[in-house]
């Protein structure tokens, strides 16, 4: 039987012990060294923001910190780029609507 091809199988990854972050109140598994965006993708979540004007869902687009589509609120701070931030244990991520919370907007 052949093992299903996965990114981890391709590079023969043996990740260190995983942990959990919280996304909109539910636990999402993360592997050490993954960005928050990567942990969410692995969980099948592609959108974690709604736009200011149209209220449209958005998630990661460029993956490297250039497009700012991946903004969300992290540990209470709005407008954080999830493609750059490491998924530290117990990070709390909430879907960001528009500018984020008015009192935190930059």
């Amino acid at each position, binding site marked *: 039987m052949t093992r299903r091809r996965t990114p981890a199988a391709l590079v023969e990854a043996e990740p260190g012990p995983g942990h959990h972050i919280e996304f909109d109140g539910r636990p999402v598994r993360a592997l050490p060294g993954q960005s928050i965006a990567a942990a969410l993708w692995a969980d099948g979540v592609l959108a974690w923001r709604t736009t200011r004007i149209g209220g449209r869902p958005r998630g990661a687009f460029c*993956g490297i910190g250039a497009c700012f589509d991946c903004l969300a609120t992290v540990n209470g701070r709005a407008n954080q780029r999830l493609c750059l931030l490491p998924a530290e244990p117990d990070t709390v991520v909430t879907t960001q609507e528009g500018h984020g919370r008015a009192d935190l907007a930059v």
Partner: protein
Amino acid sequence: MPTSPSEHFDLAVVGAGPAGLAAAVTAADLGLRCVLLDGADRTGGQYYRHPAPGLGAARPDRLHHGWSAYTALADRLGVSGRAEFRGGHQVWALERTEDGFAVHVTLGPEAADRATVRARTVLLATGAYERQLPFPGWTLPGVVTAGGAQAMLKAGLVLPGRRIVVAGSGPLLLAAASSLVSAGADVPAVVEASGYLGYARRPDVLAAVPAKLVEGAGHGGALLRHGVRLRPRSAVIEAHGDERVTGVTVARLDADWRPLPGTERRIDCDALAVGHGLLPQIDLATELGADTRTGPDGAVALRVDAQLRTSVPGLWSAGETNGVGGADLALAEGELAAHAIAGALPGRALLRRRARLRAFAELMAAAHRPGAGWTGWLRPDTDVCRCEEVPVARIREAVEELGAGDPRTVKLLTRAGMGWCQGRMCGPAVACLAGATGAGPDRRPLACPVPLSQLAAEASSPE
């Protein structure tokens, strides 16, 4: 991290990708004290981006071409006493000083702090970012850049979906598709807007770079094995879905990239990786007034002399910033620039290799130059600027009714390009819709986002 005033490097290299790495280790071998700065925590840049150590990847080479070139450079950097790597250092401005440059950086992904690094000379090796052309549905979750899909895969070992269409133009598409299928994705099609015939016009240039042909054949082989269909002279003209992408419509294009009516067909997918070539990231240099040139792909690059010197005294440039040409060229130019900066003569073989690869880069750029007809797939309500949600209709109104004749005026009238990304995503499209022939050089007062508090500190700092 405070910078001691006595710390003054011979060379600061900005960007730790192929060009920057090659330059730093070569310059150190030639006796220069250098510092290598990068916004990421690890060296490698986008090209050699690799899994975080915690992911325990035994075979990171499987996601890369020429991985041994990277490990050799990283090893040399590690043992060098004269080259120092500083990760998490995002350079946002270069400032000329009496004795060289002040290199201003922010620290960490949240740009929580800042520092200034001083050096007699600077080598810009900041690489490139992707050119995006909008189409209906391109803002849907699941539509990601081809480079972004690569980056998330290489660094985080994740995919945006299971069935991923790859589309746009340029050699990155084949590389992206080949790593996506190797990592387990189904790629029903690679949709390339150009043909591949452009390359055939210069067999002499092609024959001089056999490694490039082997690399292309390598990707082609992986794609064939996994049953990926290559559709040249075609484009994704719409992505479908509501909360996320569920399929795309692909159409054939004429030579000008205009969609041919009646050729549309739908492909189901749960992700789309898209990109239309790469653009040199040169704002740090253009802010200092460096001369530029427009390449055969319409992209603005730095103008350098045979020694890779820009028009700004003390500022050199290597790799994609001189016109996009890939990792081998970047490695050669990094080595070459280091020789020039150290006042050492480079070997003839290095000069020849660089010349051959540069010629190939120009051919490649010409082959994938976007055709003007791409606007034929836009609809009035297609968002052009993702950040500010500015649709095509508003930009056309600014041009046709309000008389905006250049991208800057369009920007001021519509806010396109004034949001978070400062036009990095929509710039080429806005310029094209504004009727600009040939893009102007990239000009952003800050090369990356800097919290206002830090700018204020800068203005009042006695440094």
